[in-house]
């Protein structure tokens, strides 16, 4: 038993999984069951009191989901994880552990549009107040800190244009403010960026995207870095105070450096209910086994496509951090040296009509609202996801009438370029 660190690809295949003790099954079985039989009354009481390791009910935990959780925790370098039904569910569950009505959290202005909606509207109705800051200006985070600030939320590679966030600089602000830094690592995946290595305290993912990777299953996950001290000043009572739900247990005292993941499970998932189907967990686990292979191909293809677009006469601008000329290239070299991801935007000289035309002419790229599929995807935000905004608002959110967003898949790059070439010429 040597204490050596296996590589990322080994962890992607093995972490969390072992042969099934009962049958010897080598692939992780799908434990498609709602509930688990107790040995006796004492065992049941121990499980309900969080005193023993074991399964109770799939809304609290499931053996297939547990393999997924340990695997992502291992890939991210965290102490524990909790899988939930979607990336959105992960965000609700995380913030429920941190926020009381009237509290604030600071979020980067450049985020997935769904997150912007969730933070600005749904969370507002809970009394959780988002304060926006500019991820390109660290001082805007410093200025946003107040005594009611409970967390800072950023994306590692940010929507929609694939810009790279200076995680270390923002983690310094979080540490000084005494609040955890939450990083949505969906667009990078831990293969490209491990935010915990750069100061993140909590990592969240939409597993639906590159981790699952095949566009077939929704899922979300929360990874606890085990780095934040929840006991200070009663600021985080879900973690530091005796919990009436569990006969007065204090989660930080009992579970140490994975107390946050436990809080998300036994106070968040248990009571809010967004459990992940074990079948989806199985599909996502299977996807993760090839994450290193896929992610490298996604990045290599994206770079080739971006370089092609830069040289095309119909294209006015390409925003891809992997290009040497890009504004975010320095940050990409530091945080994502293996590749700058596969989601980026470009602008067409022909404006709105050219965008609509391009999307309708493409034969391989699918026109849909998702990213991180094996298949290449395209969307024209101005005529779809952002169509309700006026032109000024579209431009401000990076979705001007001339902007097209790609999620580059793992097909042969020559075919992707040929498809874009014919659609741009038409």
């Amino acid at each position: 038993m040597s204490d050596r660190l296996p590589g990322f690809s080994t962890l992607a295949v093995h972490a969390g999984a072992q042969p099934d003790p009962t049958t010897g099954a080598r692939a992780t079985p799908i434990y498609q069951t709602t509930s688990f039989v107790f040995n006796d009354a004492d065992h049941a009481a121990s499980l309900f009191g969080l005193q023993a390791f074991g399964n109770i009910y799939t809304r609290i935990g499931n053996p297939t989901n547990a393999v997924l959780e340990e695997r992502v925790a291992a890939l991210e370098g965290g102490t524990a994880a909790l899988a939930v039904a979607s990336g959105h569910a992960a965000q609700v569950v995380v913030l429920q552990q941190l926020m009381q009505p009237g509290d604030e959290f600071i979020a980067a202005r450049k985020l997935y549009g769904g997150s912007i909606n969730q933070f600005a509207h749904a969370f507002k109705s809970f009394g959780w107040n988002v304060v926006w800051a500019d991820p390109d200006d660290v001082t805007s985070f410093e200025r946003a800190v107040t005594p009611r600030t409970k967390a800072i939320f950023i994306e590692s590679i940010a929507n929609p244009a694939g810009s790279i966030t200076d995680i270390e600089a923002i983690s310094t602000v979080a540490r000084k403010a005494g609040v955890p830094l939450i990083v949505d690592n969906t667009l990078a995946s831990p293969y490209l960026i491990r935010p915990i290595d750069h100061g993140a305290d909590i990592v969240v993912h939409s597993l639906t995207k590159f981790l699952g990777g095949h566009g077939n299953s929704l899922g979300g996950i929360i990874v606890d870095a085990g780095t934040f001290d929840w006991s200070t000043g009663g600021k985080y009572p879900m973690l530091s105070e005796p919990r009436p739900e569990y006969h007065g247990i204090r989660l930080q005292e009992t579970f140490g450096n994975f107390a946050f993941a436990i809080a998300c499970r036994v106070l968040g998932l248990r009571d809010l209910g967004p459990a992940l189907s074990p079948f989806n967990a199985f599909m996502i686990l299977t996807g993760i086994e090839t994450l290193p292979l896929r992610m490298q191909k996604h990045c290599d293809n994206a770079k080739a496509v971006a370089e092609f677009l830069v040289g095309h006469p119909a294209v006015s601008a390409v925003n891809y951090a992997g290009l040497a000329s890009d504004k975010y290239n320095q940050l990409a070299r530091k945080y994502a040296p293996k590749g700058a991801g596969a989601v980026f935007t470009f602008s067409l000289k022909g404006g709105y009509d050219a965008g609509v035309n391009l999307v309708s002419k493409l034969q391989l790229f699918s026109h849909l609202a998702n990213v991180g599929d094996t298949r290449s995807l395209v969307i024209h935000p101005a005529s779809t996801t952002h169509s309700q905004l006026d032109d000024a608002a579209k431009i401000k959110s990076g979705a001007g009438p001339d902007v097209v967003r790609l999620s580059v898949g793992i097909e042969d790059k020559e075919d992707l370029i040929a498809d874009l070439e014919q659609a741009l010429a038409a």
Partner: protein
Amino acid sequence: MNHDAYPDNYIRSILNSVKSIAMVGASPVNVRPSYFAFKYLAQRGYDMIPVNPGHVGKELLGKPFVASLRDIGRPVDMIDIFRNSSHIMHVVDEALTLDPLPKVIWMQLGARDDAAAEKAEAAGIKVVMNRCPKIEYGRLSSEISWMGVNSRTLSSKRPPAPTQGMRLSLNRMSVGGGETAASDRAAKNKTEQS
């Protein structure tokens, strides 16, 4: 020993070798962490001795409480201290009067006293601080994986179907010794600041 990050083999060798464990500060209250760590370790086959002067005359899961380490009246392999850091030195001083000496002194999650550790190590005793033996046993056996905890171990072996009271194998491949783990770095920074 570097007490900021223990190699898995250090923890593994302790949990594989000790048989008797005296738990100082064991509580009969069934929502206290000491109660369920005691219960778990007893179920995994350790010979557990509850030490708590406030409960002498009572039993914890069938084991009679003793008032102090000296009252145990037989050799113990490990002393597990479920007291906060300010009480550690007193317990270690008492442990050092035992004959034979214990092989291991273990301080629970949140408990750390570097001076006491140094004293015990000078007497040839292995020391673990700020860890829970239940969590470490669960981690190295991967039993803890049910709740999404990163066991930091791998195995391609088919484990036996678990039954009640079974001792579990801790001999899985370790994923690093923890010295690079962000959580260990954070704990070290906290110790340095205090």
